[in-house]
């Protein structure tokens, strides 16, 4: 298996791709923060924020629809938020009678629910764009530039490197398990749930030990190349004028969104 697409990175040359990764990370976080800070029902500002997503996607050469496909990953979570539509005091909109209970959706509740879903939907899209336009090793450099503790960055860097290898190993273990089960797993599998859980637990124990021993060999390979406790990296992403300019512009736009969001509600 060749996991090129495990990375969601889409190779490209455009303005967004060439932006310093630390700028992209900061702007993405600010964009999400900006969405969360917008008041409920600030539809104009939220629509403009969506335009920002579309603009970024277009500038990155990904086309308008790119983020749509994957933007619904967070929607199952919206189920948990549906309750709020029936829980806020306000003008009743709809009433349902379910058995002894009466569900009343209020206008304030529905607006709040819709706002939550839209905020999430917009935020996920920008996060997708970040991953699509930035190679993960560059994201790791960005964490370095943003002064995330070196130890965590090093762990994430190793994790990224061995993610693929260990998932492949896990897949092989699962395939071997399936090859040996008399009944297909989807059809319920054999044995009790506890037994099946134990089989999985044994596989995970095995994977753990293999990983543990691998980390020994990796450590030896590091020692062999002069590692002595201090983990050094070269982070090649210097900030250029262009990065500052785009970063500042984006921040001003987001501040404007906040002003618009509040003015339209007053």
């Amino acid at each position: 298996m060749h996991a090129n697409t495990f990375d969601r990175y889409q190779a490209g040359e455009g303005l967004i791709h060439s932006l310093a990764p630390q700028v992209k990370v900061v702007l993405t976080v600010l964009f999400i923060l900006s969405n969360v800070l917008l008041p409920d029902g600030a539809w104009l500002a939220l629509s403009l924020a969506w335009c920002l997503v579309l603009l970024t996607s277009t500038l990155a050469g990904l086309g308008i629809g790119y983020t749509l496909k994957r933007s619904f990953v967070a929607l199952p979570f919206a189920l948990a938020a549906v309750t709020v539509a029936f829980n806020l005091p306000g003008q009743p909109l709809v009433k349902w009678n379910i058995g002894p209970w009466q569900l009343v959706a209020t206008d304030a509740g529905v607006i709040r629910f819709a706002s939550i879903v839209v905020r999430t939907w917009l935020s996920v899209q920008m996060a997708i764009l970040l991953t699509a336009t930035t190679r993960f090793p560059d994201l790791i450099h960005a964490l370095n530039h943003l002064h995330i503790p070196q130890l965590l960055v090093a762990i994430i860097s190793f994790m990224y490197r061995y993610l693929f290898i260990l998932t492949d190993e896990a897949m092989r273990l699962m395939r071997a398990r399936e090859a040996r089960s008399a009944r297909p797993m989807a059809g319920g599998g054999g044995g009790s749930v506890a037994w099946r859980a134990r089989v999985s637990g044994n596989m995970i124990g095995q994977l753990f030990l293999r990983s543990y021993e691998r980390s020994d060999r990796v450590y030896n390979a590091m020692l062999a190349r002069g590692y002595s406790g201090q983990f050094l990296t070269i982070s090649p992403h210097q900030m250029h004028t262009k990065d500052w300019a785009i970063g500042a512009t984006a921040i001003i736009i987001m501040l404007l969104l906040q002003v618009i969001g509040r003015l339209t509600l007053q």
Partner: protein
Amino acid sequence: MNLRVSIMNEIQEPTTVAQVSPTTHFHGDNGDRGGNSAPTLLVKNLSYSYPDGHVALQDVSLQVNNGQKVALVGPNGAGKSTLLLHLNGILSDRGQVQVAGMPVTKSNLSVVRSKVGLVFQNPDDQLFSPTVFEDVAFGPLHMGMSKDEVHKRVARALAQVGMSDYANRLSYHLSVGEKKRIAIATVLSMDPEILVLDEPSAGLDPRARRALITQLRQLPVTMLTSTHDMRMVSELFSRMVIMDKGRIVADGPTQQLMEDVALLERHGLERP
């Protein structure tokens, strides 16, 4: 004579066997480094037991001179990998190892490790960074080199293995053959005195194996290679060291030892 020595299983000094003169080897533009006549690698009476009591090395002695390309063969469990781990001080017990005249001790480990380029068998263990560049840069960076120097070293090492275009690639996306070559580049960037390879051709398809052999032939460095690939040994290495049960049982010109079918068979080896 080789036959007798190997039957005796009692080699005290590797030099008792006909040594191939380094001058008969191709060694590029290196010449004799630093005018130092000390052997590039000198192993004296090395013994090692694992914590569980298993004896992995017994009184092993070995000398490799500048420019030599030496193959280390023997069955699994013969102690080859354990020996290689001693060469840069990852393991140590009794006996002595000298690299370019410098004894391997706790205090000079970092210097020694930059002189011994040890490439492990599984390239996925060797290549532990997200990108090729970061992996090849790891050694020079941890030797304390400047950023510019690191970039120069990386470019040169990648060129040496014919992978110049790969600097920005992700390690996981490489084929096994590519990984093996990058793995060699990760130690070439430290400019080692001796390149020590553990099973370089294992797991390669014929084409990738051929490419690797061509590459190794062209590398102008002293080389000690542990391998099961006897065809590669006869093609690439003029000197061969046979290990079995933690001892060196034969050490001599590859051609001569390869003729000795009885010796090979006794140690679980096959003529190519």
